[in-house]
C-alpha cells in the first residue's frame, strides 16, 4: 500500500513559508477566489460544486457542507454571517491547529468563498484561546496580508463583493466548539448551547442567519473549487469524499497528523504511524475523538477509515482523532479519564448532563478506589442511557457513548476491578496521562 499524502490541506507542507500569502500562491492560493470575483460565478453553482464534492463537516458531525450552505436564506435582506469553528478541543484532535499554522490562507479563502456563496458579508473565525502561541498569530498575519492584498474587505478587487473577516479568541471551553455555544460566546455571553430549533441558518449570530463550519471544512473549499468536485469526491469512497487529516495519538511509534484520502484501511494508517508502541498488541481504538464509541482491536483492524465503514464498526470518524490503546491500557482508568473530562466541560445548563456526568465520574472513581459494587455496572450504563438523547446539545451524548461502548466491549475489566477491590485486569497498566496505574 502506498497513499499519496497531503493532497489538499497539507499540500502547504511541501512549500516554503506556506503560511504567507506568497507561499500560499505557490500552490494555487486565491486562484479560486479571484476567479469567482472575476466571473461573478453564480452562487448556486458554488454550492452545487461543494455538494458534489461530497465534503462533509470535519468537526465531527459530518453534515454535508454544501447542503448546510444551501440552508442559508440567501435572498433575506438580513445581515448574514459565516463562522469558522477553530475551537478545536475534542480530545485527541490537533489538525486545525496545524492548518492554522501552515495553511491559514486556505481558511480565509474558504470562508470568503463560503461567504460569497451564502451572501454572508461578515465572517468570524472563532479560535480556541490555547492557540495563542502560534496558530493565532499566523492566522492574524495571514488575515492582515489578505486585507492588504485587497482580497478581503469592501468591493473586493472591484467586484462589488464585500467580505469582512474577523478573528475571535475563545477562552478555552470545550463546549464552545458546539456551534450554538460558540455563537453565544461570540456574542459575549457564557458559552451555553442554544436549543434547536431555531437553527443557526435562521437564527444564528446576533439572531441573524449564520452558517458555522469547521476549519478543515472551510480550508478544503479552495482546492475543491480549483481542482473540481469530481476530483475531490473521487479521492474517497462513496459518501466519503476527499481527504481527511487523522490525528493519531496514544500507543503508536510515530504519533502525528496524517492527511489521507478517506477510506484508507485502519491497518495502513497504523503502518504510517509506525505501528503499535514497542510492538505491543492493540487493545482498542477511539477512532474519532474522545466522544466516539471505542472499537475493539479485532473490529477496527479490519475497518476502513470512512464514514460508512466506521458506522458499520459501531463508531464514527468524528474529528478524525484516532486514539490508540495497547494491551497495557486499563480501560476503567481510561474511561474515568474521559468521564472526568466531560464532567468538567459540561456547561451546567441542562439537567441530565450537569448531574449525570459527575455521577458517572464519581462512580468510576469509586470503582478505581476499590469501593465498587456489583450493581455499579448496571447503574453506569443506566445513567449513560439516561443522559443520551435527553440534553440540549450533543455533549450529553458524547459523555454517554464512551461509557456505553467501554462497558459493551470491556465489561470484564470493570467486573474484575470491582471484584478485586480496585486492582486492574492489566498487570502493568498506565493511565492515558502516562502515569503508572497503581491499584489503590
Amino acid at each position, binding site marked *: 500500500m502506498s497513499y499519496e499524502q497531503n493532497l489538499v490541506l497539507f499540500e502547504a507542507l511541501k512549500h516554503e513559508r506556506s503560511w504567507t500569502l506568497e507561499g500560499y500562491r505557490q500552490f494555487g492560493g486565491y486562484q479560486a477566489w479571484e476567479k469567482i470575483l472575476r466571473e461573478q460565478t453564480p452562487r448556486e453553482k458554488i454550492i452545487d460544486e461543494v455538494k458534489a464534492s461530497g465534503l462533509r463537516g470535519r468537526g465531527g458531525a459530518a453534515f454535508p457542507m454544501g447542503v448546510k450552505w444551501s440552508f442559508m436564506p440567501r435572498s433575506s435582506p438580513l445581515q448574514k454571517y459565516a463562522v469558522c469553528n477553530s475551537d478545536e478541543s475534542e480530545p485527541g484532535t490537533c489538525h486545525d491547529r496545524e492548518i492554522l499554522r501552515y495553511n491559514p490562507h486556505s481558511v480565509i479563502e474558504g470562508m470568503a468563498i463560503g461567504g460569497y456563496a451564502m451572501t454572508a458579508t461578515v465572517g468570524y473565525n472563532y479560535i480556541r484561546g490555547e492557540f495563542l502561541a502560534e496558530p493565532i498569530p499566523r492566522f492574524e498575519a495571514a488575515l492582515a496580508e489578505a486585507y492588504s492584498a485587497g482580497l478581503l474587505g469592501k468591493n473586493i478587487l472591484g467586484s462589488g463583493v464585500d467580505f469582512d473577516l474577523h478573528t475571535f479568541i475563545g477562552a478555552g471551553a470545550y463546549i464552545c466548539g458546539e456551534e450554538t455555544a460558540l455563537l453565544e460566546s461570540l456574542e459575549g455571553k457564557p458559552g451555553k448551547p442554544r436549543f434547536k*430549533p431555531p437553527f443557526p441558518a435562521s437564527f444564528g449570530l446576533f439572531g441573524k442567519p449564520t452558517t458555522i463550519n469547521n476549519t478543515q471544512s472551510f480550508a478544503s473549499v479552495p482546492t475543491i473549487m480549483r481542482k473540481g468536485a469530481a476530483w475531490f469526491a473521487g479521492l474517497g469512497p462513496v459518501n466519503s469524499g476527499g481527504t481527511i487529516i487523522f490525528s493519531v495519538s496514544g500507543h503508536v511509534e510515530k504519533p502525528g497528523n496524517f492527511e489521507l484520502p478517506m477510506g484508507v484501511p485502519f491497518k495502513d494508517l497504523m503502518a504510517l504511524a509506525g505501528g503499535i508502541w514497542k510492538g505491543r498488541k492493540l487493545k482498542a481504538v477511539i477512532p474519532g475523538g474522545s466522544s466516539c464509541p471505542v472499537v475493539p482491536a479485532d473490529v477496527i483492524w479490519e475497518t476502513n477509515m470512512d464514514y460508512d465503514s466506521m458506522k458499520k464498526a459501531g463508531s464514527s470518524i468524528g474529528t478524525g482523532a484516532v486514539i490508540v490503546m495497547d494491551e497495557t491500557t486499563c480501560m476503567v482508568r481510561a474511561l474515568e479519564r474521559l468521564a472526568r473530562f466531560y464532567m468538567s466541560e459540561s456547561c451546567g*445548563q*441542562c439537567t441530565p448532563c450537569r*448531574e449525570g456526568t459527575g455521577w458517572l465520574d464519581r*462512580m468510576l472513581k469509586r470503582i478505581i478506589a476499590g469501593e465498587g*459494587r456489583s450493581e455499579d455496572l448496571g*447503574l453506569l450504563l443506566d445513567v449513560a442511557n*439516561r443522559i443520551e*438523547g435527553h440534553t*440540549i446539545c450533543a455533549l450529553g451524548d458524547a459523555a454517554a457513548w464512551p461509557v456505553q461502548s467501554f462497558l459493551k466491549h470491556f465489561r470484564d475489566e470493570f467486573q474484575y476491578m470491582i471484584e478485586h477491590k480496585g486492582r486492574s485486569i492489566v498487570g502493568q497498566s498506565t493511565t492515558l496521562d502516562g502515569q503508572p496505574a497503581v491499584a489503590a
Partner: protein
Amino acid sequence: MSDDTVNIEVNGVALKARKGQMIMQVTDPAQIYIPRFCYHDKLTVAANCRMCLVEVEKAPKPLPACATPVTEGMKVFTKSPKAVAAQRATMEFLLINHPLDCPICDQGGECELQDLALGFGRDISRFNERKRVVKDKNLGSLVSTDMTRCIHCTRCVRFGAEIQGYPQMGTTGRGEHMEVGTYIEHSVDHELSANIIDLCPVGALNNKPFRYHARAWEMTQSALVSPHDAFGTNLYAHVLRGKLMRMVPRENEAVNETWIADRDRFGFEGMYSSDRVAQPMLRIDGALKVVDWEVALTAAAEGLQSAIKAHGAAAAGFLTSPLATVEELYLLAQIARGLKCPNIDHRLRQLDFRAQENEAGFPNLGVAIADVERLEGVLIVGSNLRHEMPMLAHRIRKAAVKGAAKVGFLNPRRFEYMFPVAGYVVSETDMVKELTALVHAAAGLAGRPVPQGVAGASVTESHRSVVGALCNGTRRAVILGTLAQRHPAYSVLKALSAALADLCSASMGLITEGANAAGAYLAGAVPHREPGGAPAAAVGLSARAMMESALKAYVLFGGIDPANDLAAESAALDKSDLVVVISTHLPDSLRAAAHVVLPIGSFAETSGTYVSSEGRWQSWSGAAKLPGESRPGWKVLRVLANLLNLHGVDYDSSEEIRDALKVLCGKRVEAERSALRGAIPDGNTPQGAWVDIPPYQSDVLVRGSDALAKTKDGRLTRSVL
C-alpha cells in the same frame, strides 16, 4: 380554517394549534399536563430542565414540549413509556444533588420538585456518592437563599433580564459548579424583585421574613386586594390562626398577571407594628385611657354633636385615608352629610384644588390596565412611576420593550427606567413652562391652534421629541403622576396635560395616592361630590383648607399619620376641641392630639371593596383576625351613625353598603374613563416643591414593614426635589 392552524394529536386526541406554538402552549390550555420546572408562561423558553420531554412520532429522541414547535400532523405522546422514562430520568438527575431537606424547607408542601418527585421519582435513591453543597447568597432582607436546593432552572435569572429589565441574577461556573447568584454580592433591589420567590420551583429562593414561621398546609388562604396603590393588585393572604403570615400573588391576567410588587408582598407587616391600636381609648384627665367601646363611641358621638351644636356643622371636618374601603368611605360620607357637614376629604397630600369641578367622575388611568401594554405613544407627567405604581411601570415597560410604544417623560428629575425612553424633559423649577411648551409643540404637530388660556412658550427639539413619542401610532395616553398631584400648581399641570392629551388624541389619566381614591370620589369622600359622584350642592373644605381653618372637631379615619400623610401643617389638630381617631394605627404624631380612639380593622381584617385606577370594583371578605377589641371600620361607623341618630345607615353587611353605593353610582360603576377637560385655571401658577414620597413610606402599613425598611429603597427618606 386559516393557514395559521396546525392539526396535531396529543395522546390520541386531536388538537388545533397555531403555527409557531410550542407543544406545551397547546397542551396546557387543553388540560394535558406535562411536568416542567424551567418553563414559565411569562418568561422566555430555556428548555434546560428537561422535565417536559415527550415522545414525538418520527423523532429519534424525546423532545422538550416547551421548545418544540408544532407541525402539521405531529403526534405527541406525553405519557408513553418513552416519554415517562425520559421524565423519570430527569427527575432522578434533579434529585441526586438535591438535599431532600423537605422537613426543614419552607417550600415543603408547595414545592414543584416535591410534587413532581411524587409522580416521577424513585422511592429509594440509587445515588451513593457525596452530594453537592452550595454556599448561600445574601440577597438582602426580602429573599432568603438555600442555594444547595437550586435546580438551575434559571427562572429567577430570566425574570431579572426580561421582566425587571436588568439582570440581577445570573449563573456563574460550569457543569456541576454552575451557581445561580449575583456574582458580586448585592441585594435584589428592584421593586418587583421578590417575585423570584414565587418563580423558584424549589426552596432555593424563599420569603425571608416568613422563614420558619409556618408551613404551607397549616395556613388558610383568602383573596385580598393590595392597599398600597390603586393598581388593584390581586393578592392571596396566607393566615395562620388568625395572623396574616405572608402575601402571594393571585393571578389576574387583566390586572397584575402573575406578579406583585415587593410592597404588596411585604407591606402588610405594618399591620402588626408597635403603633397598632387594639383598644378603644378616651382622653381622661389629659391622658389616653383604655375604655370600653360603649364609653368611647358615646364620647365620640356626644363630642361631635356638642361641637356642631356650639359652632355649627361647618366647624367639623372629616379626613380619611385613601386606604379606607368603599364601604367605610360611604358610611363616613353619610355621617358627614347627615350632620350637614360638607367638609370631608381624602386628598390628604394635595395642595391645589382649583378646577376640581372639571374632574372626571372619579380619578382614573384613562386606559384599561390590560390595554397599557398595547399603547403606542405614552407621556408620563410628574411621576416617579416605578415608585408610585410599580405594576403600572411594568406594564409600560412591556409596552416599550415587547410592544411598539414610545414612552416620554416630563419630570422634575431624571428617574431610572429599565426600558428605552423616547424622550425625557427634566425641569425642577418650572414644569408648567415645559408642559406649556409641549402643548405648543403638540398644537404645531396637529396643525391646531393652541388652546385658549395657554401662555406662550419657546419650543425646543426635546419638546418635539417627547410630543413625537406621544403621537406614535394611534393608541396614546397621557398619565399624570402623584408628584404632580402634590405640587401647588397641580390644577394647572392637570389642565395643560388634558389640553395636550386632547391635541394628541390621547387618553388622559391619573395615578392616584393610595389604593382607593377612585372609591373615595364615588363614595362622596370629597367636599365637592355627593355619594354616587353627583356634584355637591354645597362645596365643603378640602383637606388642606380643613387643616388651615382651625376647626373645632376633626374625625380622622383610616390610618392617617399627620407627619407623613398630610400636605398641610397639622397644628390645628392640637388646638381642636375634639379629635376622633377611627384608625388601625395611632402614630406618635397623633397621640397628643387624639381625644377618642376607636380601633378598626385593616384592609386584611375586614370585608371591603376597592375601586382601582381603571374603575374595577374588587371586593373581598377579610382574611385575618382583628387584634384585641378592634372592629371592622364599617361596623364602627354604622354604630356611630346610630348614636348620632342618623337614618338610612342600617346596613347589616358590608355587601349591602357596597350595593347601595353601586346603585347610586349608576353608570359610573362602569369603568368611566372620561378624560379631564376644562379651562386652564386663572391666576398665578404657584411655584413650589416637588414632594417625592419613597415607595416604602407611602402608607401607614408599608411604613411599618421591617423587611422593606431594610432594602435600598427602604432607606430612602421623603425628599423635596
